[in-house]
């Protein structure tokens, strides 16, 4: 069955979300992934938005993480501090992030390219990204895969990955046991090596070569002992994604890279 890279990324992200867990999502692909997970293997996945929406029944894709869709028939229309404090308390399992640059430890830049005081490019800044990546148990990243994004050294660490390697998060003061979990791109799925906390390729998408991945990554990747081929979307996943999650093709109609 035909599918595009965005559909595959959403399906892979959805499968990484365990049933009975909690996830803070943004708009776009992460939200689609969480909705797909709810409609497939994880009916008890609870979705939160950082602006205060808790457990909505999403009628359509939100445009903003604070718009009225994010608390449509929700179990609670709360506040930003309430949601951030649930994260800090340890109640939130997953968060989803993007970014302009990411390094081999999963550190993310969404602030500036170039000098901070007179940047070449100014991006929005952390928003809630730093908070969620600091406080939620597992950070998921969905991002296009190219060498301008996957860089040896990010211009600015907006959001903590594993910083400089194993133990660095805890030494810096972040809650233990947290950190990047899966990086899902249009080429592959990566996790992190337990010993070094460096990014490690776990599966490569169908039709993508190991060389494609290397070529599009600006740092040296680690490779799992057995690099799998990413499981393509099932017919059922695609049907739900296309008919129920994103019938207007807001997300799945986009270019993934």
């Amino acid at each position, binding site marked *: 069955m035909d599918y595009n890279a965005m559909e595959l990324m959403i399906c892979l992200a959805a499968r990484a979300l365990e049933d009975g867990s909690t996830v803070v999502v*943004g*708009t*776009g692909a992460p939200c689609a992934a969480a909705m797909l997970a709810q409609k497939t293997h994880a009916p008890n996945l609870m979705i939160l938005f*950082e*602006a*205060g*929406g808790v457990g909505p029944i999403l*009628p*359509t*894709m939100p*445009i*903003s*993480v*604070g*718009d*009225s*869709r*994010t*608390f449509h028939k929700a179990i609670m*229309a*709360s*506040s*930003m*501090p309430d949601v*951030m404090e649930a994260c*800090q308390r340890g109640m939130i399992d997953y968060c989803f992030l993007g970014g302009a640059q990411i390094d081999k430890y999963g*550190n993310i830049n969404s*602030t*500036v390219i170039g000098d*901070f*005081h*007179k*940047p*070449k*490019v*100014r*991006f*929005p*800044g*952390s*928003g*809630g*990204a*730093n*908070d969620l990546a*600091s*406080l939620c148990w597992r950070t998921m990243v969905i991002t296009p895969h190219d060498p301008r994004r996957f860089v040896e050294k990010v211009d*600015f*660490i*907006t*959001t*903590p990955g594993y*910083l400089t390697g194993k133990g*660095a*998060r805890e030494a*810096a*003061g*972040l809650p233990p046991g947290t950190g990047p979990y899966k990086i899902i791109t249009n080429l592959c799925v990566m996790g992190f090596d337990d010993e070094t906390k460096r990014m490690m390729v776990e599966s490569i998408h169908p039709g993508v070569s190991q060389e494609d991945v290397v070529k599009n990554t600006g740092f040296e990747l680690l490779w799992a002992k057995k690099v799998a081929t990413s499981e393509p979307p099932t017919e059922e996943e695609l049907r739900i994604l296309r008919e129920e999650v994103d019938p*207007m093709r*807001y997300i799945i109609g986009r270019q993934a890279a």
Partner: protein
Amino acid sequence: MAETLEAGLGVEDIGTGKLFMDPDPDKAREFFRGKSRALTDKVMSVKEAVSRFVQDGDYVAIGGFGTNRIPTAVLHEILRQGKKNLGLSGHTATHDFQIMAAGGVINRVDVAYVVGLEARGLSKAARRLFEEARIEVCEWTNAALAWRYKAAAMGIPFMPARIMFGTDTARYSAAKVIACPFTGKKLLALPALYPDVAIIHVHRADKYGNAQIDGISVSDLDVARAAKKVILTTERIVSEDVIRGDPTRTAIPYFCVDAVCEVRYGSYPGNMPYEYFSDEDHLKEWLAVDSNPETLEPFLEKYIYGTKDFQEYLELCGGEHRMEELRRLEFLEDGLGAS
């Protein structure tokens, strides 16, 4: 200073950013001591509210969430009155930041999220402020600003938190690192943020300023309490009986509030939950025109400087007919399409 920190005795100055506002709770207490507690009629026009309560140089906090429940009318009036050198708390400031950047009224900003309009794209006018170094910047995060407001609302000079460690966000902030006196663990100390003025749009308020918000309150409960002056715009002014009939629902008590302005569709072109959805077409137009000063100027002239009030702006944007369409979108009356 890492060793003393380990021993529970240190303060580490990790932040090199500028602290724009004094976190001293005693200075704030002196101000609040003199703030009126009387139940007086505070209803006035947006023009009067901005003229009386927004001074050049003031530090401003905006309620809502960027394109959701924002006080657009007041932002336009700030431009129209040519306010200068305002500071801004960029706590997911999206369209609100875009307006103030376009108008050139701000010269410093605490950033959590600015220049972007979330999934809609980035504002070039807003980016130019940074890329041309025309604005002083201090970096934070959404939770950091939320908790800075909360510290101020609570009347304490800082709030401990567990975020920002190890990042450049912390390095370009004005946070400090302390050790927990009980556990010895490192904590980020976030300085209280007492804005000079908060501007918040709500669903309903009485003439004294007792206000209700339907749906998420984002940080507005804390913002209203933390700010020295508060301007409310409200979809509807209701009688005191509505407030007293359901006091559980009061989000902001009158004694925080200085001005109450009735502005129907006041969050337009943003979303007002349970009222009307955002006008994505108009927001797209904003993003398109602000990519270039030459297209931005006539746009601002047409919609803001050339209008006498928000009502005229609404008329230019399609008036009641367009608002009715946005109401139908909000209530999903035409199916699931959101734009």
